[in-house]
């Protein structure tokens, strides 16, 4: 479903991704862990071209998205993204946040878009918050709206960039539960997270990144309990 081949990304002189090669199969849930600044966000952002790779190839469903001639917006329609800081549109209600993108991008009628948005808010447990503005929602609620908003585009792949690290601890669970449901429905997901419980419950594989490369990968149990690489071990000893 996703094939990344020798991906490089520079910011000026700084090389942030130093040759990443990885495959993610359909319905797979891959968790990415690694120290801050190791390039996890950049890796994710390359996949929906929020960052333009410096070199290497990314294919999504066989389509070469790193081809300069590709329609970037078409790719982004297929790849949903959830950010650490939610990035809801503050001047729109929760419902409109979810309804607007499919209306603008997929050309849905207002009724279709709002019906879909209501269904999705229900799915994330926020049907009663439809007409509330983001500033009146808790962090956990905002993140669930953000997930609903990404889903409204009916993406084939969902990218999550530390979706729970800006949340108070008591709100982490509600967001992870929504993500677990999504994983169980068969969504293909790449999740940057240090939530070991989540990774073990629904993750198929874990990638450990450091200094722009994938240092080690394996099943969640292999990585968390039987890491081979010293850098992995040292990192895990700090977060666990």
């Amino acid at each position, binding site marked *: 479903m996703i094939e990344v081949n020798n991906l490089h990304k520079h910011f000026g002189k700084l090389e942030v991704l130093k040759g990443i090669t990885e495959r993610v199969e359909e319905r797979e849930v891959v968790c990415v862990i690694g120290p801050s600044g190791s390039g996890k966000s950049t890796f994710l952002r390359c996949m*929906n071209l*929020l960052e333009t790779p410096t070199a290497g190839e990314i294919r999504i469903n066989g389509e070469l998205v790193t081809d300069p001639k590709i329609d970037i*917006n*078409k790719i*982004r*329609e297929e*790849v*949903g*993204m959830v*950010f650490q*800081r939610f*990035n*809801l*549109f*503050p*001047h729109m209600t929760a419902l409109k946040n979810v309804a*607007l*993108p499919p209306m*603008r*991008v997929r050309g849905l009628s207002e009724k279709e878009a709002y019906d879909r948005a209501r269904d999705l808010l229900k799915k994330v447990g926020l049907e009663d918050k439809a007409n509330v*503005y*983001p*500033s009146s929602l808790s962090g956990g609620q905002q993140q669930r709206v*953000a997930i609903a*908003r*990404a889903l409204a*585009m009916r993406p084939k792949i969902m990218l999550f960039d530390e979706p729970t690290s800006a949340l108070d601890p008591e709100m982490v669970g509600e967001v992870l539960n929504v993500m677990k449901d999504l994983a169980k429905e068969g969504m293909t997901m790449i999740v940057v997270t240090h939530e070991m419980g989540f990774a073990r419950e629904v993750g198929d594989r874990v990638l450990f990144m450091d200094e722009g490369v994938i240092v080690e990968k394996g099943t969640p149990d292999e990585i968390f309990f039987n890491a081979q690489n010293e850098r992995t071990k040292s990192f895990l000893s700090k977060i666990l």
Partner: protein
Amino acid sequence: MSLLVSYLEHAVAVFPSLLRGAVITIEVTTFAIFFGLIFGTIAAFGKLSKRSIFKVPSIVYIDFIRGTPLFVQILLFYYGIPGLITAATGQVFRIDPIIAGIVVCSINSGAYNAEIVRAGIKSVDRGQMEAARSLGMTERQAMKDVIMPQAVKLIIPPLGNEFIALLKDSSLLAIISVHELSKNGMLYVSKTFAAFPTYISVALVYLALTMGISRILAYVERRLGVSDRSE
């Protein structure tokens, strides 16, 4: 006592002429606000653009206008440029002073507006554009539906100050004989030498006008604040 009476008489006598001047002042300011907003928005987007054919002219425009006095811009536009055209074509070329005044004030105001609009757009969190783009919205859609509605609230208050400054600065058009408020005051003084009562009247009429604009702006800001409950 008789001095006060004589001052009051002058104030009353000059008043109709000041009102006619105020109408011209309002007219010039209104047109200049309108075109200044258009120029300012274009220049703001030009300066924000990544493409140098848009970026460079916008920067040159903004820096030139903001780096030179309005007074000199008025002289340059009303005397300098027609003089140049006359010399180049051999035919006498003139501009109507009011038209010249509107054009110069629009161009001048546009450069200041551009910086205000640009700052407003830039201060919307980067994550907003990224979220919109990650949902497949085009840059244009994201600007219209996501960025601008948030930027407008940041832009309106400083823009309001800019309109007030513009109204006051339009008094400089007296130098090219636009019969606006100040010029009409000056004409009356040149006939009567009653400088104090005339210029205090002129000042009070400006004050009334700027307070009027402030009121309108406060209303607009309130309306925008009410229709948006995000704060």
